[in-house]
């Protein structure tokens, strides 16, 4: 190799190395550099279910399912707002296809004049305790009958404001006005829906708290002939006791939640519809929880001659959950439902498992 050739190849090599170095520097200054610090906190969740039914032979009640997968993002937007986005792919009932749903897409103010919070966008409507939970946070595999029957899918688009009341205990009031798309409302007769929730909390011992809540919402209904008005009202009350051992880390704990939901009765109703449930959960080992729950609904049904009577459903359930870390759990559950028509009674045996990956979840209270 001549000296010139050596010089040339050295120059080419040096150029390549330099170019590679520049390219690397460019990459790190854009896609992997400081801009990455501004990425939202990201987490994902998967929820699976295996189930057999004693009395219901339908494919929806027997099989192994991916119930839903969920992606959550949260971040500060600018000096004024924080944003949340939760996208869910949930299995459609009686089908193996999935619906994409935006569970939450909202802005929340960062500076709070007079301590007032403002949420704009799509969000869970605050009604009672259960309606605000994601399925992977449910204390039992299925939502209580009272929730499914009267306040399903409490997600809507609009504005909500919240603040604490100047009382000697913790008392929070949330009021909202939304578009009227949520489960209990009539989408064809879409009109403004609004509501409020007041929750009060007391420390009744060093390690135990009592929460008493009241909820109300009002929105468009389907049949003003029946109800006497195009708006229907729903009322709710809830009482929760929580306790956890203050002396043993990840030690015994109790959650006991009771909730009643009362929709306004129709004009020609013969009784008051309502739904109630009581859920008791006990942590009996570092990684183990036991749950016992029961509930009932009394709802209207139209019989001969248009005379309404109330029909009843009762339910009972028991589960054991293995929670080896904050990021995964497996639970086995037996649930029983009984209807006013005994032909629709059912016992279900279920196994559900769930994972969370990504940013550390805050411990819900």
């Amino acid at each position, binding site marked *: 190799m001549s000296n010139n050739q050596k010089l040339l190849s050295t120059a080419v090599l040096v150029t390549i190395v330099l170019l590679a170095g520049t390219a690397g520097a460019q990459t790190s200054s854009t896609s992997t550099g400081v801009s990455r610090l501004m990425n939202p906190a990201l987490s994902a969740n998967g929820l699976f279910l295996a189930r057999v039914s004693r009395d219901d032979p339908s494919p929806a009640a027997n099989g192994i399912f991916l119930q839903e997968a969920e992606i959550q993002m949260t971040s500060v937007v600018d000096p004024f707002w924080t944003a949340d986005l939760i996208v869910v792919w949930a299995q459609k009932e009686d089908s193996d296809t999935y619906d994409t749903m935006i569970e939450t897409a909202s802005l929340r103010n960062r500076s*709070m004049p007079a301590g007032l919070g403002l949420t704009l966008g799509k969000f869970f409507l605050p009604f009672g305790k259960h309606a605000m939970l994601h399925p992977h946070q449910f204390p039992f595999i299925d939502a209580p009958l009272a929730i499914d029957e009267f306040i399903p899918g409490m997600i809507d688009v609009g504005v909500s404001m919240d603040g*604490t009341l100047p009382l000697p205990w913790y008392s929070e009031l949330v009021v909202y006005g939304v578009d009227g798309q949520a489960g209990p409302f009539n989408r064809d007769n879409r009109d403004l829906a609004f509501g409020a929730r007041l929750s009060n*909390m007391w420390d009744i011992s060093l390690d135990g708290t009592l929460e008493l809540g009241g909820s109300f919402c009002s929105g468009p209904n389907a049949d003003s002939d029946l109800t006497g008005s195009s708006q229907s009202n729903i009322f709710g009350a809830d009482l929760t006791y929580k306790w*956890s051992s203050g*002396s043993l880390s990840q030690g015994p704990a109790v959650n006991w939640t009771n909730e009643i939901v009362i929709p306004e009765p129709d004009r020609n109703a013969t009784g008051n519809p309502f739904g109630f449930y009581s859920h008791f959960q006990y942590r009996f080992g570092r990684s183990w929880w036991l749950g016992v729950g029961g509930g009932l609904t009394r709802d209207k049904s139209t019989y001969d001659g248009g005379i309404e009577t109330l029909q009843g459903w009762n339910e009972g359930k028991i589960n054991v959950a293995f929670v080896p*870390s904050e990021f995964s759990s497996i639970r086995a559950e037996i649930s029983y439902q009984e209807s006013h028509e005994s032909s629709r009674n059912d016992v279900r045996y279920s196994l559900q498992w769930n994972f969370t990956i990504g940013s550390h979840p805050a411990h819900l209270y």
Partner: protein
Amino acid sequence: MNFTKTLIVAAMLVLATAGQSLAELKVVTTISDLARIAEAVGGDDVEVSTLCPGPRDPHYLPAKPSLSRKLAKADLLCYNGLELEIGWLSLLLDKARNPRIKPGGQGDMDCSNALEHILDVPDGNVDRSMGDIHALGNPHYTLNPENAVLVARAMSRRMGELDPQNEADYTERAEVFAREVTTRLPHWHDQLAEARSKSIIIYHQHWNYFTHWQGLNVVGEIENRPGIAPSPRHVKGIIDRGNDLDGVIVIAAQWDHLEVAREVAERIGVPLTILPGYSGAQEGTDDYFAFIDRLCTRVAEAAPPAVKE
């Protein structure tokens, strides 16, 4: 004469009430150690309360909204940082609606910023197969009193910024605290002379700043994956290791799952040394110095001088 007396009394009353309305700085800390340091630095010029009571493990404090009532009125929030409070502090801050102490606010103080050295910062890849690890490093730094001094000085600067009138007092009290630590250091050091020749098995990485400060030799952890119950195989490994060594001390916090720790100690044939996790976690340790005293005394007691044969 009577008129003058009345006037003086009235003036004193007015001053007294005026003094009260010149509100003390309201300081809220997350853990009890930080509360004790804040009290030492703030003296009568501050009112200190803490979110996590001494006997409770701060990794798992329930985010009771009632706690956010304390935060709602705070002028200064001193928190431990390094993700110790990751499961609950942000929820409480949301509910507290207090812009003074929100991230970026003047009263938002991450005390870990005062440290010079953070232990156990993971090098390389971390994932949760290692348990619910503290990804920013070990957060239990107040177990080294030298770190407490750094935190005290940082608190005095921040309190001085928020309450410039009393700035000199804050600085002075932080130095008093520092001198107190310096005075006690030789005794604490001497107490553990024997323990330095022993092999220490700890339950959780909670003790690393203490053992590092005192030059103690940690040979194993029972809960090797934080937040996750140790596997029987790992526990057996620790017991085997302990049995191969002479002079083992097994240490756990009073809130740990002591049945496992007891089993390890028993099968190695040594008593289990149960220590307070933070100030106030055990009776008689409310004071920060009493707390450090207790740690040193208990470990020293567990390390009797080797008997010469």
